């Protein structure tokens, strides 16, 4: 998109800041990590815009965002985005009455809690697709994997979510 060739980093911040923040928050469930990521991404955008060559701006931006996110994880080695062992989903939805389940299961807190239990690759694909709204092609470009892998990751992420959340009958 040619309009992106004239964007300043401030434009990017105002246009995409909210999405980047939401992306990071949905991946981590942690507002501090999300804020750190936004600052890091905007810094990288500021440095990178000068050398940005017209192409898929979304792909470029989300690749930067993803790399910043992964670098942050590697550096900080913070708390827990470690997935549960396969098949052990007892920490979620372990409760109770059908009424309670009906009332709460779809609350975003529950979905958020389920999201952070997904293995990173699946979580990332689902968040990019269903939260950020990227196409499969854009996700493939941002994550540097073939589209077939994107399809598989999104599906597997959704399948795991489906099992983590208790759906009303």
């Amino acid at each position, binding site marked *: 998109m040619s309009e992106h060739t004239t964007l300043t980093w401030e434009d990017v911040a105002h246009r995409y800041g909210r999405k980047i923040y939401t992306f990071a928050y*949905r991946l981590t469930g942690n507002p501090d990590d999300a804020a750190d990521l*936004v*600052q890091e991404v905007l810094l990288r955008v500021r440095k990178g815009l000068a050398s940005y060559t017209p192409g898929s701006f979304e792909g470029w931006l989300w690749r930067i965002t993803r790399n910043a996110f992964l670098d942050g994880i590697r550096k900080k080695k913070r708390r827990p985005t470690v997935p549960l062992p396969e*098949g052990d989903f007892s920490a979620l939805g372990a409760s109770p009455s059908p009424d309670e389940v009906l009332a709460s299961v779809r609350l975003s807190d529950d979905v958020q809690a389920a999201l952070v239990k997904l293995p990173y690759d699946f979580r990332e694909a689902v968040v990019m697709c269903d939260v950020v709204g990227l196409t499969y092609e854009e996700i493939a470009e941002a994550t540097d994997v073939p589209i077939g892998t994107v*399809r598989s990751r*999104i599906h597997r992420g959704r*399948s795991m979510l*489906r099992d983590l*959340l208790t759906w009303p009958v």
Partner: protein
Amino acid sequence: MARMNTYQAQLSILLSCYLDGVLTDEELNEVVHVLDNDLEAIAEFHKLKEARRAVRLMPMLEIPSHLLPRTHLDEELSAFLDGELSTQETPIVSAHLESCGECRMVLADLDRSRIAIRALPGVESPVFLDVHRETTTATRRRIPAVVALATGVAAVVIAFTVGPFASGGEQPTISIADLNARHAAVASVPAAVQISNTAP
């Protein structure tokens, strides 16, 4: 989760892709055929659809405003004029003013109105409003709030009405360096001294 065979796993991926509208024509035909005939596939499809919907219904979050770059200064400008910025804020505001003509214009306007108000003469209160007139010197100097407010408003109106004509419509010029110096000076003057400057 029961283990799926290869066909089922492949079909399950297609069902997910079907939700996102990314199937080829051939894949689409296969999915439509399966959904017409296979109850298990239909159940699987609805579960995937619910999972997808749940994530999509999560609200987009508001980004904390401090993470976004500031476009223009606001209340910091008055605080800058009054020497009320913190030592951390002052260089940031100063740097922004160096590069932002719009904020410099606003600053100049604020400065003009601030000067106009500060230049107002003290007013002796009418006798009938000051029951303690003869009691203390301090009381004698006090200006009734209503009179002071009315006088202040009148001065601001005059400043903004006459100002542009008096200056021939020129854009205000303001020196950030001078203001920085003033900022430092004002910040170092005790409050009591500043108040006494406005006395008659």
